[in-house]
C-alpha cells in the first residue's frame, strides 16, 4: 500500500480539490508546543498542499472525550484522516523533514 501512495505523489501533480487532505491536530491548551505545532502545520500545508487541505484543531482541555476515538496519547498529535491510510505524527512538527515523511509528502 505504501508503494502505491508514494507513486501517486511522484507521478501525479497535486490534483487540486479532487484529492482533499483532511488533517486533524490534537492539542491541549495554548502551550508553546501547541502553538508551534499549529504554525508549523499551516506553513507546511501552504507550501506543499496549497488549496487542497483542511485543518481541524481539537483542544483536549476543552473536549477530552474526542481523544478516545483516535486513541490519542501524546500532544500534539497530527492525524492524516485523508487520504487514506490514516497516519499520525506526534510532536510540534518543528522537524519539517520528518513531518513530510510522516505525511508521505516525501519518501524516507
Amino acid at each position, binding site marked *: 500500500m505504501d508503494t502505491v501512495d508514494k507513486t501517486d505523489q511522484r507521478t501525479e501533480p497535486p490534483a487540486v480539490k479532487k484529492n482533499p487532505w483532511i488533517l486533524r491536530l*490534537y492539542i*491541549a491548551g495554548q*502551550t508553546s*508546543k501547541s502553538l*508551534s*505545532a499549529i504554525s*508549523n502545520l499551516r506553513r507546511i500545508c501552504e507550501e506543499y498542499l496549497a488549496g487542497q487541505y483542511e485543518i481541524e484543531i481539537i483542544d*483536549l*482541555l476543552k473536549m*477530552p*472525550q474526542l*481523544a*478516545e476515538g483516535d*486513541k*490519542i*496519547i*501524546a*500532544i*500534539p*498529535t497530527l492525524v492524516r484522516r485523508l487520504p487514506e*491510510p*490514516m*497516519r*499520525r*505524527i*506526534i*510532536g*510540534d*512538527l*518543528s*522537524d*519539517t523533514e*520528518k*513531518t513530510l*515523511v*510522516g505525511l508521505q509528502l516525501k519518501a524516507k
Partner: protein
Amino acid sequence: MFTHVPNYPQIEKIETGITGFDLISSGGLPKGRTTLVSGTAGSAKTVFAVQFLAEGIKRSGDAGIFVTFEESPADIRRNVKSLGWDLEVWEAEGKWLFVDASPDPGQDQVEAGRYDLGALLARIEYAVAKIGATRLSMDSLGAVFAQFRDAALVRSELFRISAILRQLKVTSLMTSERTQEYGEIARFGVEEFVADNVVILRNVLEDEKRRRTMEILKYRGTSHQKGEFPFTIVSGRGVLAIPLSAMELKQKSSNVRITSGNKELDAMCGGGFFRDSIILVSGATGTGKTLITTEFLKGGADKGERCLLFAFEESREQLFRNADGWGSNFEELEESGLLKVVCAYPESASLEDHLIEMKDIIEHFKPNRIAVDSFSALERVATPKGFREFVISLTSFIKHQEVAGLFTATTPSLMGGTSVTESHISTLTDSIILLRYVEMNGSMRRCLTVLKMRGSLHDKDILEFNIDGGGMHLGEPFRHVTGILAGNPRETPYGIPAI
C-alpha cells in the same frame, strides 16, 4: 534513644478484595497512592490489575478506570470472562471505563518535534470525573515505552500522571515488565517514579513445576508481610494468595474427646483423639493406614458427625471395597449425607489449586472430621518448599475450622524411616500414630504405637495388631523386641536389652 518519636500520619489503605493480598499487605493498597506491580511475562499482572477494579465494584461499588496500553479492550473483556468478570455489564452501569491507549496494529507513528503525554493525562482526568472513579489500573507501562522513543520523557510524564491521580484521590496500580524473576525491579527504571510501593509477581519454574508467588518489596511508611507468598489463579475468582506466615496461631483447643472409631485405639490414646486436633498416621504401604482412616470416618459417622475424605491414592471403587471388607459400608454412609468421599489424582492439578479446592469443599460441606489419604501422595506434585507451605496452610485452615483432621503419610522404606510429610507435618500435629512392619521368626507382623499425644497421657507400648473382617484388633505389646521403630527389630529373649 527513643525520646523523640515523630508522629507520622498513618497511611490509609483500601482493601483490594484480592483474597490473601489484603492480609499480606496489612490492609490493601495505600489509598490515593500509586503501586507498581511488576512481573515477567505470564505472571498474571493483567489479571491482578483487572481484579483490583472488579473487586472494588463488587464489594463497595467503587468505580474504576482501566488504562490499557497493550491489549485492546475487546481482548481484555474476552480474556477475563472466564474469571467471572463481565466487564460489559459494569461498563453499561457506569462502573467501569476503559481508556484505550493500545496501539493499532500496522500503524506506525512518526515523531517530529517536542511532545508530551498531555492527551493521556486529559483522557484519564476526564474518565475519572465522568464516572467518579476511585480506583485506576494501568496495564502495562512497558507498552507505553514501546510506543515512544524518549524514555526519559515517558518516565517524567508517568510521574506527572501519578501525582495528579494522587490529587484526585484515586488509588492506582500500574503494571510493568521484568525480564528476570530475580533481578532489576522493572524495565525502563519505572520503579523510580512510583517507588513508594512495589509488588512483585513471580512465575518461577522450579523442578519442572510452575510456582506463582507475590511479594511486597516496598510499602513506604506502612507495614506489610515480608517474603514471597504463593498464589494461584482460579476460574471464577481470579488471583488467590495463600498467606502462610501471615496466618495467626489462634486455634482453639478443646478437651473434648472423639472416638478414633476403634475402642482399643481410643484406650491407647487415653480416651480418644481430641476434637480440634491433627493426627498423623505414618507407615509403609500396606501397614493399615487406610484402615485407620476408614475406622476414623466410620466412627465419626456412627456418632452422627459429618465426615470428609480426600483420597489421593485409591479410586472410589477401591476405597469402598476396602471399607466393605473391614465392615464399613461407605455407600450407605454417603447416602445418609454424613460422608463425602473426594478422589483426585495428585497430578490433576497444582498443589495450590488442590489447596483452594480442598478449602472450598471443606467450607461447603462443613465436616466435623476430615481425613486425607494419603497426604504424602501430594509430595509428588510440588517442590519441597511448596509442599511445606501447603502442609502449613491446610493444617492451619483445618484447625481454624475446629474439626479433627487425620492425615496419612507413606514412609518410603518398608521397615521404617520417615517421609518428607512427616518431617514437615510432625510438629504441626497433635498426635502421631506409627504403623510398622516387624519381621520376626520368619514372618511379617504389624505393630502400632502412639508416639505423641499432645496434652494427654497415652499408652507407650508398641502393640501388635491384626486385621480381619471387623477391622483392626490391637493385641499384645512386643515385650522382647527392640529396634522396631528404627526398622531393625532384634529379639531380647530374657528381657535384657541387647547391646
